[in-house]
C-alpha cells in the first residue's frame, strides 16, 4: 500500500511537472519554428534562464484571478467540471510503465504504479470519462455558445474514441495482452534477429490511425473544434482564472499521456534496443555488460526521451496545420479513420493467420 | 397651355411660366442663385443660362417666358461652359471660407461648384478684402466677402416684410449689402434671411458656430407657438457615441409645402418667435412620474392605477360633480377628443375648463394673436373655450386634474395655486418641471409637440398632421397615451379605447364622430 502510494506520488509529480513545462516547451518550440524568441520575460531576481519561470508566473496569475461563475449557473457543478476532466486524465498515468524492475535489497519494485490486467481498456475508459467534464462545463455555463461547444466536443471525442479503440485492436492482436507490462515485454524481442519487435514495425497503419485519433482526443489545433477559439464557441468560454487554467493544463496532460501511450504501445516503452537485464547484446556480436542500476537508469531515460520526442512531434503538428471544418472533422473520423482501422484489423488477422 | 421642349422632351405648361419653372416641372434642375419662388425674377446672378434654339446667345431661364414650340437645351457644351464661367467670376471674389462657414453643407454655391464647376481658377489677383463681421441687427451677422449680391435679402425685406432695412450700396465691384446708417433690421421675420441667403453671407448668432449642419437631422413638424401653425423642420442632433452634445434641437427651419398661389407670400417663411423659440424643448423637462406620497419616481402602472382608483371611487360614491378638469389648447386634436370623450361624455363632468390662452400681438404676415396652436381644434371638437370660473371649480372639489402644456407664461395657473390646498387630490399633466409642480400629488410627465404625433387645427381651419421628431425624455409619454389608458382604467366605456396604438387610430375615430375632421 505504502509502496503503491509512493510510486503514485512519484508518477503524478513527474506527470504534472512535465505538463507544466510542456506549456513552456510549446511556447518556445512554436517560437523557434516561427523565427521568434518566445516567452523570455518572466524572471526571478533578474534571472531569466530562457523564460523557464514563465509557467510558474502563469500559474500564479491564474490563481490570483477572479474566480468567476456566470449568473444562473450552478456554482457547484461549474466548479466541478474542470476537476472532472483533470482528475480522469491525471489518474491514467498510474498504468504507464516507466521501466522494468528495480531491485533494492533483494526486493523487487516494479516501475509502474499499478499493473492492471486490463490496462489499455482502463486508459481508454478514463479518457472517455473526461468527456463529462466537457459536456458538463458546456451545459452548466448557461450560455448557448458553450453548450454548442460542449456538444461539439462530446460528438468529436466520442467519434474519435471509436477509431482510437479500433486502432489498438491490431496491437492487442499481435501482442496478445491488455497489460501494459506484457505488451512492453513482447516488444523487447527481436525481429529477424536484429530489428526490435516494436509495435511500429508490426502495426504501421495502426500507429498512424492511433496518432490521428489521439490528437483529436487531445482537442488541440487541427482538431480544436470544441475550443473553437476563432469563433468563441468553446465549452470553457465562461471559465476564467484557475478553472480555465485547469482545462488548459488538462490539454497538456493529454498530450503527455498520448506521448506515453505511443511510446508504450508502438515504440517499445522503456526498451533501449538490444539492452537486456544484464547489459547490451548487439546483434552484430559483442556485449557490453552493465550493472543492474545503470540498466534501469538507461531504461527510464530512454522512456523519457521517447516521450519528449512525441510531445515535440505533437507540438510540431499543432503549430503546422490549420484546423478542420466541423463536417470535415466528422467525415474524417467516421468515413476515413474507422474504415481504415477496420481494414487494419482485417489485414492484421489475415497476415497473422498465414 | 403651351407646349415646349426641354432637352427634346415635350412638356405642357401654362402661358407666362418661365423656362426655369417649366424645367422644374419636367424634373430638370437649372442651377440658379438669385431666383426665388417667392419673388419675381431678378436676373442678377447669371447662373441660370440655357440655350434656346433660334436665339443667338444664351438666355436667362429665370426670366424668359415660354413660347409655343420653344426648344430649350440645358446641358449643352455652351451652357456648361457658361456656368463654369459664371462660377469662376463669382468665386474670384469669394473667400472660400467653407470650413468656418455655417452654410457649408447646404450652400448653393458649394453645391454648384461641385456639380458644374470643378475648375482651377485662372485668377492670379489677390482677392478683395471686405468686412467679415457686420452686425445688421436682430442677431444677424453679415459677411460681405461671402455675399454674391443676389439681392434676395433686399427683395425679401422690401417685398415681404415691407420694411426695407437692407439695400445695395456703391456700384460695380465695390457694391455691397448694408443697412442705412444705424437703422438695424428689426422685424419679426429677419431670421428668414439666413435661410434665404443662398450662401453663408448672413448668419444668426443663435446657430452660429454651434455645430455643423451635416450633423443635424431634420424632422417635419408643425410650429406650436401660434395658431397659424406654420410647417417647420426641427433640426436636431442625434448625438455622438462617446460625447454628450449640449442640446438636442439646434434650429428650426421653414418647410415649404404649399406652393399654391394664395399662400405664396406666406408659405416660405416662419416668424422669429417660432424660429428661435425652441429652447423649451430641452430646458426644464419633466422626466419622472412623481407620486408625492411615495416620495420617489413612480412606475407608469402605479400612476395609472392611482388616477383610475381616485376617479372610480368618485364614481361609486356618485360624487362625480366633485371632480374638476382644466385643459388647454396646446393639446392636439386627438388628445382633446379623448379628453372630451372621457371627461364630458363618459364621466359627464360639468367642471371642464380651459387655461387662459397665451396671447401676443398679431402682425400682418403670419403671427396671430392667439399664441396657442389648437384653439380652433378644441372648438370644433365641441369644447367651449371658457375661462376658469374659480368659484365653480373649487366648489367642494375633491379631485382636480390639470393639463398644463404651455412653455411660457404663468397664465391662469398662478391664480389656481393659492386655492389648490383646498382640493384633496390634485393631478398635473405637464411636460415641464416648474416650481408649482410640487403643489400636486401626482405629476405626470408628458411631451411637447415635437415629440409626439398628432394634429393641430390652425386658425384657418386647416388640420395639419405631424409625427414625432424627437424621442421622449425619460418616462414622459404623450398625453393621448395617458388618456387612452385612463379611459380604459375608469371602465365606463372600455371598448372605445381598444386598438388606439397610434395617434392616427384616434384620429380615425374622430373622423367618424365629427363632421369637421372628415
Amino acid at each position: 500500500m505504502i509502496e503503491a502510494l509512493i510510486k503514485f506520488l512519484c508518477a503524478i509529480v513527474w506527470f504534472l511537472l512535465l505538463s507544466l513545462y510542456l506549456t513552456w516547451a510549446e511556447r518556445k518550440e512554436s517560437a523557434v519554428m516561427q523565427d521568434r524568441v518566445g516567452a523570455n520575460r518572466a524572471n526571478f531576481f533578474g534571472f531569466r534562464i530562457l523564460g523557464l519561470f514563465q509557467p510558474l508566473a502563469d500559474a500564479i496569475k491564474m490563481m490570483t484571478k477572479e474566480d468567476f461563475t456566470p449568473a444562473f449557473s450552478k456554482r457547484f457543478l461549474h466548479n466541478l467540471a474542470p476537476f472532472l476532466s483533470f482528475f480522469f486524465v491525471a489518474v491514467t498515468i498510474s498504468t504507464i510503465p516507466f521501466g522494468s524492475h528495480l531491485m533494492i535489497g533483494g526486493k523487487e519494485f516494479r516501475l509502474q504504479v499499478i499493473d492492471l490486467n486490463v490496462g489499455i481498456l482502463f486508459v481508454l475508459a478514463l479518457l472517455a470519462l473526461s468527456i463529462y467534464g466537457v459536456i458538463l462545463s458546456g451545459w452548466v455555463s448557461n450560455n448557448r455558445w458553450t453548450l454548442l461547444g460542449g456538444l461539439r466536443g462530446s460528438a468529436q471525442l466520442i467519434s474519435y474514441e471509436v477509431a482510437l479503440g479500433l486502432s489498438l485492436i491490431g496491437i492487442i492482436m499481435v501482442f496478445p495482452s491488455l497489460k501494459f507490462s506484457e505488451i512492453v515485454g513482447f516488444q523487447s524481442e527481436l525481429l529477424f534477429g536484429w530489428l526490435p519487435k516494436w509495435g511500429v514495425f508490426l502495426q504501421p497503419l495502426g500507429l498512424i490511425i492511433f496518432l490521428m485519433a489521439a490528437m483529436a482526443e487531445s482537442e488541440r489545433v487541427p482538431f480544436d473544434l470544441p475550443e473553437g477559439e476563432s469563433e468563441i464557441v468553446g465549452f470553457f468560454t465562461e471559465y476564467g482564472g484557475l478553472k480555465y487554467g485547469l482545462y488548459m493544463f488538462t490539454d497538456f496532460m493529454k498530450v503527455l499521456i498520448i506521448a506515453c501511450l505511443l511510446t508504450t504501445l508502438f515504440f517499445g516503452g522503456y526498451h533501449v534496443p538490444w539492452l537486456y537485464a544484464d547489459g547490451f547484446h548487439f546483434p552484430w556480436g559483442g556485449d557490453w555488460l552493465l550493472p543492474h542500476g545503470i540498466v534501469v537508469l538507461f531504461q527510464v531515460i530512454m522512456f523519457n526521451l521517447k516521450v519528449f520526442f512525441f510531445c515535440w512531434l505533437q507540438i510540431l503538428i499543432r503549430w503546422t496545420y490549420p484546423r478542420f471544418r466541423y463536417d470535415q472533422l466528422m467525415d474524417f473520423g467516421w468515413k476515413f479513420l474507422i474504415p481504415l482501422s477496420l481494414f487494419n484489423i482485417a489485414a492484421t488477422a489475415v497476415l497473422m493467420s498465414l | 397651355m403651351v407646349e415646349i421642349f426641354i432637352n427634346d422632351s415635350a412638356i405642357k405648361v401654362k402661358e407666362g411660366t418661365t423656362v426655369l419653372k417649366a424645367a422644374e416641372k419636367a424634373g430638370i434642375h437649372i442651377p440658379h442663385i438669385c431666383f426665388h419662388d417667392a419673388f419675381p425674377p431678378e436676373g442678377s446672378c447669371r447662373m441660370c443660362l440655357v440655350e434656346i434654339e433660334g436665339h443667338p446667345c444664351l438666355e436667362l431661364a429665370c426670366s424668359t417666358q415660354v413660347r409655343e414650340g420653344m426648344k430649350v437645351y440645358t446641358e449643352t457644351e455652351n451652357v456648361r461652359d457658361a456656368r463654369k464661367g459664371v462660377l469662376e467670376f463669382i468665386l474670384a471674389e469669394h473667400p472660400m471660407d467653407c470650413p468656418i462657414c455655417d452654410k457649408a453643407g447646404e450652400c448653393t454655391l458649394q453645391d454648384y461648384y461641385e456639380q458644374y464647376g470643378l475648375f482651377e481658377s485662372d485668377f492670379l489677383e489677390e482677392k478683395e478684402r471686405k468686412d467679415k463681421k457686420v452686425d445688421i441687427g436682430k442677431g444677424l451677422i453679415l459677411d460681405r466677402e461671402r455675399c454674391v449680391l443676389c439681392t434676395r435679402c433686399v427683395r425679401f425685406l422690401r417685398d415681404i416684410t415691407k420694411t426695407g432695412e437692407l439695400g445695395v450700396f456703391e456700384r460695380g465691384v465695390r457694391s455691397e449689402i448694408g443697412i442705412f446708417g444705424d437703422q438695424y433690421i428689426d422685424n419679426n421675420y429677419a431670421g428668414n434671411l439666413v435661410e434665404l441667403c443662398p450662401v453663408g453671407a448672413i448668419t444668426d448668432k443663435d446657430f452660429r458656430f454651434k455645430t455643423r449642419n451635416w450633423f443635424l437631422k431634420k424632422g417635419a413638424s408643425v410650429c406650436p407657438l401660434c395658431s397659424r401653425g406654420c410647417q417647420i423642420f426641427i433640426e436636431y442632433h442625434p448625438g455622438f457615441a462617446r460625447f454628450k452634445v449640449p442640446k438636442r434641437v439646434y434650429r428650426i427651419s421653414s418647410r415649404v409645402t404649399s406652393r399654391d398661389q394664395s399662400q405664396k407670400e406666406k408659405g416660405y417663411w416662419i416668424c422669429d418667435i417660432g424660429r428661435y423659440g425652441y429652447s423649451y424643448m430641452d430646458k426644464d423637462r419633466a422626466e419622472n412620474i412623481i407620486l408625492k406620497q411615495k416620495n420617489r419616481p413612480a412606475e407608469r402602472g402605479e400612476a395609472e392605477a392611482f388616477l383610475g382608483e381616485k376617479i372610480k371611487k368618485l364614481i361609486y360614491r356618485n360624487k362625480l360633480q366633485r371632480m374638476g378638469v382644466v385643459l388647454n389648447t396646446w393639446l392636439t386634436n386627438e388628445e382633446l377628443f379623448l379628453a372630451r370623450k372621457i371627461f364630458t361624455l363618459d364621466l359627464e363632468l360639468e367642471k371642464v375648463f380651459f387655461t387662459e390662452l397665451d396671447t401676443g400681438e398679431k402682425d400682418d404676415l403670419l403671427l396671430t394673436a392667439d399664441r396657442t396652436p389648437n384653439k380652433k381644434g378644441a372648438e370644433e371638437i365641441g369644447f367651449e373655450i371658457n375661462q376658469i370660473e374659480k368659484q365653480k371649480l373649487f366648489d367642494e372639489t375633491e379631485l382636480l386634474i390639470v393639463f398644463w402644456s404651455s412653455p411660457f407664461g404663468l397664465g391662469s395657473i398662478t391664480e389656481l395655486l393659492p386655492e389648490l390646498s383646498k382640493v384633496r387630490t390634485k393631478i398635473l399633466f405637464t411636460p415641464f418641471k416648474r416650481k408649482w409642480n410640487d403643489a400636486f400629488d401626482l405629476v405626470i410627465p408628458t411631451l411637447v409637440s415635437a415629440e409626439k404625433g398628432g394634429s393641430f387645427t390652425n386658425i384657418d381651419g386647416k388640420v395639419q398632421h405631424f409625427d414625432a421628431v424627437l424621442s421622449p425624455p425619460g418616462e414622459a409619454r404623450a398625453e393621448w397615451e395617458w388618456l387612452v389608458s385612463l379611459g380604459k382604467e375608469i371602465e365606463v366605456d372600455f371598448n372605445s379605447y381598444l386598438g388606439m396604438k397610434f395617434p392616427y387610430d384616434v384620429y380615425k375615430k374622430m373622423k367618424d364622430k365629427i363632421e369637421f375632421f372628415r
Partner: protein
Amino acid sequence: MFRLFGYFFEIIRGSVITARHFIVNLFFHTLNLFGIKTKRKGAFTIQYPEQKSEIAERHRSLHRLMKRENGKPRCVACMLCQTVCPSECIYIEAAEDPDPEIQKYPSTFLIDISRCCFCGFCVEACPEDAIRMDTGEVELAQYNKDDLMLDLDFLLS
C-alpha cells in the same frame, strides 16, 4: 486514392518545413547562447522595451494641435476632422474669436484616444494643417481610461 496520396504528401511536407525551421533556428539559438556570434540570428524578434524599432517617417502617432505665431491654436474649429473620423472620437465645441479674420476657434477639443484607430483621416481632412500625428509618441497605455481623453491644453503642448 491519388488525391489522398497528394494530401498526405503535402501534410508531410508541411511538417518537414516547420521542422526544418525549428532545427535550423535552434542551431543558431544554441550558438548564440554560447556566445558564438553568427551573421544569421535565430529569430527576427526585436526585444521591445530595451530595443526599439525605428519609427517610419510617414508614421502616425499621438495627435497634436499646431499653434499660430501668437500661441493660439491654429485650429478654426471647422469640425471636419470630427466629421471624417470613423471612430467618432473627436469632439469639438467652437466659440467666436474676437478677431474677425479668424472668427472661430475651438473652446473644447477632445480626442478620445481609446477609440482612435489611428487612421490619420483627421490629418488629411484638416484644411489648416492644425492637427498632426507626428509626435512619435506610440506608448499610450494608461491605467485609467479617463486619462485617454485628451483635451485642448494637452494637445497643444
